């Protein structure tokens, strides 16, 4: 790859980073030009995040050189890299829920008036920043009162609050809706014109062409290749990334659906109302809509986790009274939450312990745990679900995102449930593992399972679902049968349009 040497702002070469027991980065290189977007591409665990954390000073490198803005640098902490004009938007939300938007934007770099922190100035500056991003938020609002997508936009504002020359974006779109993604891309364009260099990490292949100028592929902590993002082929990139060819990402076979196994009647709760949906055995039903439309809240209420104000839920033909998660599990329902790390798994515990976690009463009817059944179940699901691990006593926290998700699936299958709600089943999972999860879902419905899949990824909804419900503002605004599922129709319902325009 040829770079325009006059415009190079960052040049890293021979970067090596060791963590106890692993070689996280092995002789990696990266070059960034002013006013261009350099996409970092790679599966989870390829070392992208480690590399950018070295740039921002969160980690220190063991070997290699880093030239930034004409000088050799070695940032010891984030403060130093920020002073040098490096900003970072983190993958995991990096905000304080109990503090206001303004306090978050200026956390650690509070504006001062003499020796006193100047709150008024911070509120005013925040307002300006938010306005510039086209966001109409009150800077005094606490972060915990914002939706995840809104929080992500505050994160963007925070990264732009000081003059950046190099902006690192670690999966900035993972929790944004299409509207906000469009806004983010506008911002990226504007920053490029201001000669800001951008490092952009993403799992979404379609974004690479849209925003990228260069794309560097990493695999297993190693540098693979750098290509021109505008001309690189999708298949070529995927092959470089996974080191092997994968077939069609979405490989579904259609099965004639059977009985209705899950049904809601006029279900109303915290952020949704009058929801009537059903799922049959043998089908994957997609639940689409913008972030904040009430999908997750609906799922949590149907699983008995959140309170229901009115309406009923029926499972396998039986109307449930006094919903609670334990009753739902007994009735044959499972719920894979949006946030598997905190709500779905016990990260420090082993795979087998996690797998039996939701069905202790089933495997240990006399109330005492024993290793035998635990090992047996662990082994069974590691094999069945093809979980990549040397053995099932390994801690779940050490697995990659895709394998962690498989453990959650295993946990629910172990309960013997036949109906699963999957909330964002492939969020933060790399392409290779995604296709395996889809394959697994396909196998499950073939065996007569029913799946309700909540997803913000339009391609996923279209590729995987047999039928789709779209929610808007807490209500189901549309239903699309097989054959009618396409992007435009979903978007129309997602922003509140009605079918054909005459049924309203």
């Amino acid at each position, binding site marked *: 790859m040829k770079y325009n040497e006059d415009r190079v702002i960052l040049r890293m070469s021979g970067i090596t980073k060791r963590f106890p027991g692993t070689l996280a980065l092995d002789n990696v290189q990266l070059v960034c030009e002013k006013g261009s977007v350099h996409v970092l591409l790679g599966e989870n665990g390829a070392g992208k995040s480690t590399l950018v954390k070295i740039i921002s000073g*969160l980690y220190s490198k063991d070997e290699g050189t880093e030239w930034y803005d004409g000088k050799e640098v070695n940032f010891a*902490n*984030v*403060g130093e*890299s*920020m002073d040098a004009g490096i900003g*970072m938007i*983190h993958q*995991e939300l*990096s*905000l*304080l*829920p*109990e*503090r206001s938007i303004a*306090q978050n934007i200026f*956390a*650690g*770099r*509070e504006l*001062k008036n003499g*020796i*006193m*922190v100047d709150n008024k100035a911070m509120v005013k500056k925040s307002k300006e920043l938010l306005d510039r991003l086209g966001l109409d938020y009150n800077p*005094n609002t*606490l972060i*915990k*009162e*914002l*939706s995840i997508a*809104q929080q992500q936009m505050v994160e963007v504002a*925070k990264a732009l609050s000081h003059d950046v020359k190099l902006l690192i974006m670690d999966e900035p779109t993972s929790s944004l809706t299409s509207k906000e993604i469009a806004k983010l891309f506008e911002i990226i364009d504007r920053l490029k014109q201001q000669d800001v260099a951008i490092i952009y990490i993403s799992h979404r292949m379609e974004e690479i062409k849209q925003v990228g100028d260069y794309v560097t592929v990493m695999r297993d902590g190693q540098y693979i290749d750098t290509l021109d993002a505008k001309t690189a082929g999708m298949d070529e990139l995927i092959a470089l990334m996974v080191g092997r060819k994968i077939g069609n990402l979405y490989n579904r076979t259609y099965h004639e659906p059977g009985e209705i196994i899950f049904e809601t009647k006029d279900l109303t709760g*915290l*952020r949704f109302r009058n929801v009537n949906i059903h799922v049959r055995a043998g089908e994957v039903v997609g639940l689409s809509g913008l972030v*904040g*439309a*009430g999908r997750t809240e609906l799922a949590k209420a149907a699983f008995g986790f959140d309170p229901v104000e009115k309406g009923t839920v029926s499972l396998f033909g039986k109307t449930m009274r006094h919903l609670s998660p334990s009753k739902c599990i007994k009735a044959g329902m499972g719920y894979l939450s949006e946030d598997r790390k905190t709500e779905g798994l016990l990260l420090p515990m082993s795979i087998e312990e996690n797998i039996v976690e939701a069905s202790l009463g089933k495997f240990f009817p006399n109330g005492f745990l024993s290793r035998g059944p635990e090992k047996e179940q662990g082994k069974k699901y590691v094999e069945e679900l093809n979980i990549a691990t040397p053995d099932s006593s390994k801690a779940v926290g050490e697995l990659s995102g895709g394998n962690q998700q498989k453990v959650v699936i295993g946990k629910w299958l172990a309960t013997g449930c036949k109906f699963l709600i999957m909330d964002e089943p492939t969020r933060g999972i790399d392409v290779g593992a995604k296709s395996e999860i889809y394959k697994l879902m396909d196998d499950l419905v073939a065996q007569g399972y029913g799946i309700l899949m909540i997803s913000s990824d339009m391609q996923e909804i279209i590729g995987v679902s047999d039928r789709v419900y779209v929610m*808007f*503002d*807490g209500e189901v605004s549309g239903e699309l049968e097989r054959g009618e599922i396409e992007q435009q129709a979903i978007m129309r319902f997602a922003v509140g349009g009605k079918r054909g325009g005459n049924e309203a």
Partner: protein
Amino acid sequence: MKRKFKLAIPGIALFDILLYIFFSFATENFFSSYNTILILRNSCTLVIASLAMTMAIMVSQIDMSIGSVISTAAVMVALMVNKGIPVIVAIIAAVAMGAAVGAVNGILIAKFKFDFWVVTFSTMSIMAGIALVISGGETIGFQNEFLDWVGNGTLPGGIYWVIIITALITAFMIWVERKTNFGYNMFSIGGSEVVAKNSGINVPLNRFKVYLFSGILSAITGVIVASMTAAGGPTVGSEYGFNAMAAVVIGGTPFVGGKGGMLGTVFGTILLKILASGLSMMGIEPTWQKAITGVIIASLIIIDVLNEKRKVKNGLRRVYHDVEK
């Protein structure tokens, strides 16, 4: 402006007022300026110790050594005054001791990453031992005009100087909390250490400052305790640690840190003292007082948790409309 004022006063102040009104009607002698001033005077030392504890709890930690530093400071002042050392030197020496203990805590916790519980528990034991050794295990009485003025002197209106001193220290600490980078950083670190690091905040340095402040404030508390009683007892501080934790949590700073603050702690402390005074005047035995205090603290915290849940729920509803419309 109005909104800002509303935000700045913690909800616990309301409970203080309600409780005050309740005891005013329930007992004969509770409602009087004399008793009110007495309650405030009795709150002073615990207020300062609790301010120290607030800082540690704010950054998701605990300083167990507060009580022993109080004892040691009180004994040091008593011994030095009896030896004829100028009182100002004695006070400076005691505060320097507090700063040193705080610095040791801070270095071990912030720089060497030892567990805060182990470190402050150890310094607590060490300082408790030192207080006993240097005092010979006995309470040491002393006479000193300046300290007597600090502890027992009054303004013409009958208000004690110690209340004024405490108010000044409190005002300074609230200023530190709300108007300095250090104060903001405490909230950030307590809210999430990862976020603080990602935002370029020097977490170890700020932790160190927390323990340094905590040590100094504890030593000042010890000096005031000695002044008020004209004596330095080797175990006078032993109850302060847990009482300060209670005051902080009642005041709205949870053990996970990151929210609440010093003003809440002040009201939390006063609440404890209103309870003590009111229950005594109702003729309830000290043994029962403890149990009743526990029940009231528990119910306050339950009310607070429920209230918080309701707020979050309403917050969700509101956002849901903001987002979509």
